[in-house]
């Protein structure tokens, strides 16, 4: 005897969800096959369920993390406790000193990063490509890709082999920010050589290339939609600095970046680290196992450390800032297989007054007088206007002036008027003695140069590039590449980048 519909009515939803025990599911299936009404109900419930799943997924506003930080610690801009007795923290507590410290640290950052550059061969402009295949807590399990430079034809294979692991592991997300936060002890960082792809990172911070190789048109379009909804910003846009002040106000500009991707070209985008992470996850959701990510740290990783130390006061960032090491160096110190220090900046003509930012514009071996000069210059940075007027280190002065635009003006004024002593103290606290010893450490050749210098024509050397002057710390210079799906319809944008292969194609 066929059971009545009432006996099965309550199980129909569980049936379509696969949440019934096998025997019961078989009974329901049998009934549904025989009962038009229940079959119709099942089909309509399926449509309701799938329709709900298709509703747009709303994304949290980009400032949510900062808002949580503020609320947790009453405007101190951090989650977590400050390290007790941290001199770094104690200096940063008052707002006035925070502003001064930010400027002073940037100066020191320039100083130190220049020494980092000096520590590498000037003929080696290849950025360190830091590839995070997985966030695992035992770094011994890491594949030893560092030993074998990645070949381009391995890209697809590598995506298949490592990308799923990378992206299935939510820890990878931590990897992205962890790099900046300097939590090197838990980052199994892989280093590859891929000079062409990430060369275009002119200043400190993170650089990243996301490659999406959709398998079909639906994935391709979905990936484009993900990018369209992303809060990205073209690097070099006039509003890059504004972006750091008011991200939401600049959302309209993201479509410019999209247009470039639509046309199949690479585009450098400026995004927050959080947005970069979300982009990776979103791409992976629409094109599972078809997303590869390459990450690097531009040469002034120390900027990122200082920035984050100031912004987040994370212990790791403070540790890096205190020791004045770049993030890249921190990774090396922590035992991660970082093979080469990074110099993503264009190689510039040697000579003291050649202009440019930081960069290898000085003799390779810093003399004692070099150090002294840097110290004097750094002290002078307390007055960027004076520096700009003097014509010396214009780039640093410009950077500081720009940085000021983000900071609070009244606080700056107050700092100038009331706290000159603090400024000096701050500087002294972070520079004397330690810098010199650090320089000695950085000078030890860790990496052999192998890559040719970039063509001067592609990297203006007479002055720093606009992108350089607009760079903002703490954000990610992001390249997004969405490959056309295999067998793309005519008119689909072709892969343009000549020096890379199509990861989805061959």
């Amino acid at each position: 005897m066929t059971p009545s519909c009432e006996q099965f009515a309550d199980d129909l939803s569980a049936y379509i969800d696969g949440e019934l025990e096998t025997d019961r599911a078989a009974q329901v299936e049998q009934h549904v096959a025989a009962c038009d009404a229940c079959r119709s109900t099942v089909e309509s419930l399926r449509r309701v369920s799938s329709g709900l799943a298709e509703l747009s997924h709303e994304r949290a506003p980009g400032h949510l993390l900062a808002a949580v930080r503020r609320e947790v610690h009453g405007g101190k801009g951090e989650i977590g406790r400050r390290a007790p007795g941290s001199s770094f923290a104690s200096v940063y507590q008052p707002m006035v000193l925070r502003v001064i410290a930010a400027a002073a640290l940037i100066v020191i950052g320039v100083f130190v990063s220049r020494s980092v550059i000096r520590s590498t061969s000037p003929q080696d402009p290849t950025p360190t490509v830091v590839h995070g295949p997985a966030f695992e807590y035992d770094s011994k399990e890491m594949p030893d890709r560092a030993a074998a430079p990645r070949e381009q034809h391995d890209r697809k294979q590598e995506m298949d082999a490592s990308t799923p692991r990378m992206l299935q592991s939510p820890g990878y997300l931590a990897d992205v920010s962890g790099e900046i936060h300097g939590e090197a002890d838990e980052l199994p960082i892989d280093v590859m050589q891929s000079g062409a792809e990430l060369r275009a990172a002119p200043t400190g911070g993170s650089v990243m290339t996301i490659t999406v190789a959709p398998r079909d048109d639906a994935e391709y379009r979905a990936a484009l939609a993900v990018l369209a909804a992303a809060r990205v910003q073209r690097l070099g846009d006039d509003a890059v600095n504004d972006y750091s002040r008011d991200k939401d106000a600049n959302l309209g500009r993201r479509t410019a970046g999209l247009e470039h991707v639509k046309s199949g070209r690479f585009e450098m985008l400026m995004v927050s680290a959080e947005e970069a992470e979300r982009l990776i996850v979103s791409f992976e959701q629409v094109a599972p196992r078809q997303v590869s990510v390459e990450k690097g740290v531009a040469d002034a990783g120390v900027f990122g450390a200082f920035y984050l130390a100031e912004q987040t006061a994370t212990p790791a960032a403070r540790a890096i800032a205190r020791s004045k090491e770049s993030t890249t160096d921190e990774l090396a110190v922590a035992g991660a297989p970082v093979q080469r220090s990074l110099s993503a900046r264009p190689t510039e003509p040697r000579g003291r007054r050649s202009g440019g930012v930081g960069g290898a514009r000085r003799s390779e071996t810093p003399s004692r007088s070099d150090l002294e000069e840097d110290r004097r210059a750094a002290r002078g940075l307390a007055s960027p206007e004076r520096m700009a007027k003097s014509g010396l280190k214009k780039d640093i002065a410009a950077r500081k002036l720009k940085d000021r635009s983000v900071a609070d003006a009244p606080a700056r004024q107050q700092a100038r008027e009331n706290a000159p002593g603090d400024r000096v103290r701050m500087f002294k606290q972070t520079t004397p003695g330690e810098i010199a010893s650090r320089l000695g450490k950085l000078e030890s050749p860790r990496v052999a140069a192998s890559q040719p210098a970039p063509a001067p024509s592609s990297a203006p050397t007479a002055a720093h590039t606009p992108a350089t002057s607009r760079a903002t710390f703490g954000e990610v210079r992001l390249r997004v590449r969405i490959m056309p799906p295999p067998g793309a319809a005519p008119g689909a944008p072709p892969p343009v980048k000549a020096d890379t292969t199509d990861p989805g194609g061959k």
Partner: protein
Amino acid sequence: MTIHGNFERSASSKNMADEPVTSPARETIDIDATLVRRARSGDSAAFGKLVLRYQDRVYNACYRLCGRRDDAEDLTQTAFVKAYEALPRFEAKSSFYTWLFRIAVNLAISHRRSRGRRKTISLDGGNDDRRPDPAAADEDTDVAKTAERSELREHLSAALAELDHEFRAVVVLKDIENMDYATISQVLDLPLGTVKSRLHRGRMALRERLTRSGVQL
């Protein structure tokens, strides 16, 4: 009743043995646990990472539960703050993910109750399931292919907003957040049988509303 009994055993064993994709993967749980442990020991970055990992999902769930973006933002923020404050008391009986959702969903339900069930059918002013961005809308329209599906979404969004909260929470967690019954049971602190029946009734209510609106199912 045997049916429910079977069902409950079924869902439980499923969760334990087969690791359905709808519950957090073991790897996710492990990494969450590590981040929680680090956060509890004072690693400030670790909790930030947890926020980044789950902010979109929590926000989306809150939005679908309360119907307003500004409220969803407040609720999400509050949920993370509460989670942070309660972290020392978090016992690893459930995953962080489940625990966090429990906080967020309870906040959203309380919020909705406190508003006296004032209806926010529009989900931010429109009865459409509007896209956050025009450029995305273009792309999405292509993806959606048919106006019919778009219409279904539109009506579904409105119907969901009208649903009673007890049904709505289950429907959102299942059909939007793609949780399995066992996880929903933990998040809402309900017996599996209740989850199952509420989900069915919620879907049936949505179906009825759609039918009344003239949507062909």
